């Protein structure tokens, strides 16, 4: 866990992270930059679009097994998810589920670095997150879903919810996981409550080490490719190729409603 200058994951861009996570020489990008699947909504709002909409989908092998790595580009709009990038993530998960059902499983690694939903495509982003969540839960019935959170942005908003649904969450000390971002909390509750400019505080509350201690992450590793690759491999080996995970049990909606009303001092 000692910080050192090595083969850093965080210093790579999304495409190179995906390449480094897959077995050497095994990198085949699906719908890459030259597919020119740009967001059609950004230009009208004065924002430049990116040719891959900030999501890299790469197929290859991982530990010799067929795999798909989905990496979000934290440099482009903070890695925030719009309609097209969201569809690329959801489709990758859905295709992996189809592969699993056919008995030819594909390992999926979600290499997220994202501030959540792209505000310029708010409703479409929300819809995308719902589709991604549904696809993660469906895939979990067949195999573990592994997230690597080790970039400069971390995961916030909707993407932190997707991360929480994953079986295995691999983090580094520099990673961050939170629902509302520090600036959002400060804006809503005031700097006395949470000072977003206080970086040690931000990491103390949302950083990888804290999230691992709290059980929100399953592995804490150094920002070094061999360590991260080993943790990913371990995550799949530990869970076995096929581990059926039940859909989460939701409480009885009627009882939940009563509890909610009681909490607010309303007599049902």
């Amino acid at each position, binding site marked *: 866990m000692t910080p050192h200058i090595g083969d850093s994951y965080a210093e790579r861009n999304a495409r190179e992270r995906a390449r480094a996570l897959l077995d050497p020489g095994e990198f085949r990008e699906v719908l890459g930059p030259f597919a020119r699947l740009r967001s059609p909504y950004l*230009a009208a709002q004065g924002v*430049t679009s*990116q*040719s891959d909409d900030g999501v890299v989908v790469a197929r290859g092998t991982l530990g010799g097994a067929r795999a798909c790595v989905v990496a979000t580009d934290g440099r*482009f709009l903070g890695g925030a998810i719009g309609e097209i990038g969201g569809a690329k993530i959801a489709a990758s998960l859905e295709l992996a589920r189809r592969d699993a059902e056919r008995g030819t499983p594909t390992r999926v690694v979600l290499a997220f670095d994202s501030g959540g939903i792209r505000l310029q495509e708010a409703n479409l982003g929300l819809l995308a997150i719902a589709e991604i969540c549904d696809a993660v839960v469906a895939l979990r019935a067949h195999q573990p879903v592994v997230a690597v959170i080790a970039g400069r942005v971390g995961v916030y908003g909707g993407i932190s919810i997707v991360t929480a649904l994953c079986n295995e969450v691999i983090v580094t000390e520099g990673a961050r996981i939170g629902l509302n971002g520090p600036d959002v909390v400060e804006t809503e509750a005031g700097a006395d409550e949470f000072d977003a400019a206080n970086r040690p505080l931000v990491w103390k509350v949302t950083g990888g080490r804290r999230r691992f201690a709290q059980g929100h992450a399953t592995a804490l590793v150094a920002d070094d490719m061999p360590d991260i690759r080993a943790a990913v491999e371990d995550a799949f080996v530990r869970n076995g190729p096929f581990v059926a995970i039940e859909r989460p049990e939701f409480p009885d909606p009627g009882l939940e409603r009563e509890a909610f009303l009681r909490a607010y001092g309303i007599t049902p």
Partner: protein
Amino acid sequence: MIETLTFTYPASAHVARRAHVGAVASGNCELLLEPSPGPSASVTVRTSVGGYAATWEAVLARFFARHSIAVRLEIDDFGATPAVVAMRLEQALEQAR
């Protein structure tokens, strides 16, 4: 709003393959470069920072004067400085050769 600029330069040399460099990030730009069969280089610039057509022209004219390559080039800009653009152009050429 997004400003779209187009430029054309005469070209004689060819490149071997396409190249993708950079990102649409603050102070950066993304380049998509593809070989073009014709005897010219065509450039499309889309930028969120308007009013710099003359600067783009100067940077691109210098690059294509040095490297007379027949390509189709798309640049998506998020406020890259001329120096960054010049480096991205050289990087794309290095990959395409």
